[in-house]
Each structure stands twice: as C-alpha cells, then as structure tokens.
C-alpha cells in the first residue's frame, strides 16, 4: 500500500504540475518579439477602426451611459452576471499597458495580460481567425484612435469556486480552433472574403449557430451543416443563415441579403431583437464589397429541407377570419385587426420593405415561438441607418395585451397564411413576460437555452 503511494504521489504531482502549467501558461503570439508600439499611420488607424466595426466590439464593451469601449455591460449567465471590461487605452483601468502581443492573446486566444482566461462571452473562438494584419491595425486603433476612459472593471457575480478561471483553459482547448482563417482552395476571392468576415470578425455564429451542452458553438465553419443553422439565444430566435426555405435565407437573393445588412431591411424582413444592435453598430458600416462578399458566402451554405419542413407558400384563406362579421369566431382575429393589421397589413404581408410581412417570416415559421412573443411584448429597437432613426417601429404590447390575448393573436399569426410555426400558449407568454420585465433586476442577456 505504502509502496503504491510512493509510486502514485510523484505521478499525481507531475500530472498536477502539468495541469497547472497548462491552465496558466501564456500562449505564444506571433507578435511576442514585435518592436514596441509606434504611432500608426492614418491609414492603419482607419483600417483598425473598420476591423472594430466588423467585429462590433462596441456593442458589448459599452453601455448606453458609458464612454465608448469603457465596458460595464451586464451579461447574465446561469451562474451569475459577468460584466464587459474597459478596453479603452486608459493605463490603469483599461488596456493602456497592453503590448501588441498581450492584445493579440486577449483577442484571439481569450487570455488576459495576467494570464487569466476569458469567459467565452468574448467570442475569441471566432476572433481566433482574424489575420495578423487585422489584429495589428485593431491594436493601433485601440491604442491611438480610442479616447482613454477611467472606469474600473466590475467583478463578476459568479460565486467561488465557479468563478475560477483556469478551467476555461480546457474549454478553450476543446472548443476553440486556434488559427487564422485560411483561404479555401476552389473558392473565389469574394467567397473567401465573405467566409472570413462571417466566421472571424463578424462572429455571426455566436448567435446563429446552435450551442452544445458546454455552451460551445457546435460548428465554427461551413464544414458542418449545423453552422449558422439557427439558434435561440437571449430570448430571441436567431434564424438560420443557410439556404433553408422557411427559417433561413432560401428565399433571399444575394442582393436582398446585401440590402438587409446595408439598410436594415428588405422585402422579407426588418432587423429586430439583437440584430438591431448588430445593424446599428456594425453591418451598416461595412463596405459594399464586404457586404456582397458576406451575401455571396451565405448563399453558398445549403439548407436542410428535412429539418426545415414543407416549404412555405402564402395561403390567403386566413384572411376570411379577419372579415367583419367573423371576428368573434377565431381567437386572436379581433386583436389582429385592432392591434396588428394597421402596420402588418390586413393580409399579413406587411408594407414593402418598411414594415415586415408576418406571412412567411422566419419568426412565424420557427418552431420556437420566442421571437414572436418577445417582439410582441417588448417591441423592436429603433433602427438608425445613416444617422437617421427610421419612422417605423414595433411598439411594446406588454402593458396592453394579456398573456392570453398575445397567445391567441400569435397562434393566429403562426398558423395562418401558410405559416407553420405553431400555436403559442399563455404560459409561454407569461414565462417570457417575467424574464424580460424591464422592472426586473435580472437581465436575460446571454442566457442560453
């Protein structure tokens, strides 16, 4: 027994030391031996600012009240809230002391300057694909193009021992393919540029790719048909960005995807939910060439007809329920006429590219009703295109309609006009009403379900 212990102890000690080394080691950066920071050219600064737009850094690293990039945004996780950090060049509270190599490790590896591992709320599995050039320019922008702001980082509310960061090193090893995006042979330049933005800085998969048990994205590129196949996150259903006819981009042309990302709307849909942030802060600032590249890449991803179900086709027979004299017969019809039809049309088909169609929309066809309920309860965010707020916005109906009224009208919408999303129960509405109550202190951001 004692002999066994003598053999085992060193083994355990060595294994322990190995683990300790692994979880605290500083990953190498190609910039480890880079020359100290120099004042960048205007061109490099502009490039860096553009990469920050592509990556939408500002969306999480700011709050409406804070200085840009000063952090503070609360993200609730099932274990407790975490708070986005100050990434302004303030030397004490921000990243002013970061070298290019430190910055690179943070962005592409999810490792802080002191070696602590980041929660994967920071999409470093995607940012890992950023090119050295883009990282260098991004660093230059954050060091020289962003105003330093003094704002202490806030500690997470996650209790010990769950707040220990070192186990995240194993998560990263398992789920983060480190490595810069590699151009795919056999695909043209446009496709490769689109793939780079979508998979890398754009981190589209953070919302649009389903996540596994360890909250990892199930795929990080088009090698799997789960990539960008649609997911529920933050109380919204992020539709498929693949060729799915119903819940994806199957009915969208490349030009229509371009128009959507550039102006926030097209004949099929208008941005809402989390995509309103992505549009307001990121996609509208992308160059036309980059938006075309994204559209081109997304249209190359095939749909999954088996999962998507029978292709939607408009069925006008639902309009009969909306005729005077019949309104009492179908639950939800009267509410539709009084509350919804003025904007979304007496036929459910919206108004051109200004107000979206409910007939055939991804939210009305998705089996998960969370987007339909959430937008009805809480309305849509204002879309600011080119500095001008749009004229058309979905108001919140939280205080006007009961759980049952919302359930009835959404059931009518999600089963009418050929929609196959299915009925909604008052209980579904109540759950989301409670979770998204603005008077509640627990925010639902990043709550994965």
């Amino acid at each position, binding site marked *: 027994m004692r002999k066994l212990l003598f053999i085992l102890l060193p083994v355990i000690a060595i294994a322990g030391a190995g683990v300790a080394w692994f979880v605290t080691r500083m990953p190498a950066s190609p910039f480890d031996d880079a020359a100290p920071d120099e004042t960048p050219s205007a061109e490099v600064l502009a490039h860096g600012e553009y990469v920050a737009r592509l990556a939408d850094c500002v969306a999480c690293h700011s709050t409406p009240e804070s200085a840009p990039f000063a952090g503070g945004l609360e993200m609730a996780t099932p274990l407790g809230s975490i708070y986005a950090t100050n990434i302004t060049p303030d030397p004490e509270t921000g990243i002013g002391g970061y070298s290019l190599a430190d910055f690179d490790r943070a962005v592409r590896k999810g490792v802080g300057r002191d070696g602590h591992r980041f929660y994967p709320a920071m999409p470093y599995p995607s940012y890992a694909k950023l090119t050295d050039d883009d990282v260098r320019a991004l660093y230059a922008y954050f060091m020289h193009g962003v105003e330093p702001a003094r704002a202490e980082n806030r500690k997470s509310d996650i209790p010990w021992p769950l707040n220990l960061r070192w186990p995240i090193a194993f998560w990263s090893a398992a789920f983060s393919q480190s490595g810069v995006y590699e151009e795919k042979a056999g695909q043209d330049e446009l496709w490769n540029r689109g793939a780079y933005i979508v998979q890398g800085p754009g981190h589209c998969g953070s919302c649009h790719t389903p996540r596994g048990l360890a909250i990892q994205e199930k795929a990080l590129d088009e090698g799997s048909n789960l990539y960008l196949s649609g997911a529920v996150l933050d109380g919204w259903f992020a539709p498929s960005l693949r060729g799915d006819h119903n819940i994806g981009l199957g009915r969208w042309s490349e030009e229509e995807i371009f128009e959507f990302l550039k102006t926030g709307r097209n004949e099929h849909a208008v941005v809402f939910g989390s995509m309103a942030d992505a549009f307001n802060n990121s996609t509208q600032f992308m160059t036309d060439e980059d938006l075309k590249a994204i559209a081109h890449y997304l249209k190359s991803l095939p749909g999954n007809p088996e999962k998507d179900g029978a292709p939607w086709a408009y069925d006008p027979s639902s309009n009969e329920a909306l005729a*005077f*004299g019949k*309104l009492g017969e179908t639950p939800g019809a*009267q509410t539709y006429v009084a509350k919804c039809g003025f*904007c979304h049309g007496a036929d459910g088909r919206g108004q051109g590219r200004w*107000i979206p169609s409910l007939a055939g929309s991804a939210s009305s066809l998705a089996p998960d009703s969370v987007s339909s309920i959430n937008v009805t309860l809480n309305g849509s965010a204002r879309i600011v295109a080119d500095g001008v707020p749009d*004229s*058309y916005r979905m108001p919140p109906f939280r205080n006007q309609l009961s759980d049952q009224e919302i359930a009835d009208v959404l059931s009518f919408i999600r089963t009418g006009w050929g929609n196959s999303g299915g009925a909604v129960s008052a209980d579904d509405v109540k759950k989301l009403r409670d979770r998204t109550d603005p008077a509640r202190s627990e925010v639902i951001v990043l709550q994965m379900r």
Partner: protein
Amino acid sequence: MKLQINNKAYDVEADGDTPLLWVIRDELGMTGTKYGCGLAQCGACSVLVDGMVMRSCVTPVESVAGRSITTIEAIEEDEVGKRVVEAWVKHQVPQCGYCQSGQVIAATALLKQTAHPTDEDVMAAMANLCRCGTYNAISAAVRDLAEEEGAQ
C-alpha cells in the same frame, strides 16, 4: 410621386419612406388628420385608402401612390361618411376633438364594409383612443348608425 387625395391629384416630393401623415399635413397642408402617437396605437391619424382605414403615421407614402385616399376634409362627400358626421353631431360626441377625425374615419370605414356590424366588429374597428373619454357617446352614435333601417 403622384397621390390621389379627396379626388384631387397631387404631385409630392417626399421620400418614399415618409409616413403618409407628414405628407398630408406638412407638404399638402391638410391638418384635419392628427398626429397622436406615431406608432399606430391611437388612431388619430386615420385616413381611408380605397375605403379601408389606414393609420397614416405608419403608412410609407410610396405604398399608397395611385390609390384613392380620403381624409377628414372630404369625409362628408362620402355618403356613409356624411351619415357618420350627422350621428356625431346628433350625439354631440366630441369634447376636445383631437381624436375625432380619426374616430369618424374609423366608423366610416367600418360601416362601408358592413352596414350592420356586430359588437366584435365594433370593438375591433373602433380601437381609437380618446383622452377625454367620449367612448360612451361614440358607442351610442355607432350603435345608432348600425341599426339604421336605410343602411345597406
């Protein structure tokens, strides 16, 4: 862009996404149609488009180009609209009056589609808000109109 309002043709310069309300009020100077909430919630901005009620504050002007628009200014040229206004006068419906052009438009649209509306129809169609609380008078006027013998 060409608009057909109250049987008159207008050439307007507004961008296609401008809400119809602002074209009617600001560009064409017809101020009978009111701005209330801007979110299709209150009904003060209601107009008729091809006889159907529309909330002009959420109607992109390009979507009604070439269609027949009727505002409160010309509602009495419509036979049903005329009867509605008469009933409104008889029941002395308005108090401050701000919402009333929308209320009259809504009632006209309802009665043009169904001469004898059910209670559900009235509830769905007369969803306009009134800060003065003239709902009882509106209800009495609409009930009167719905029960009129001559109506078809």
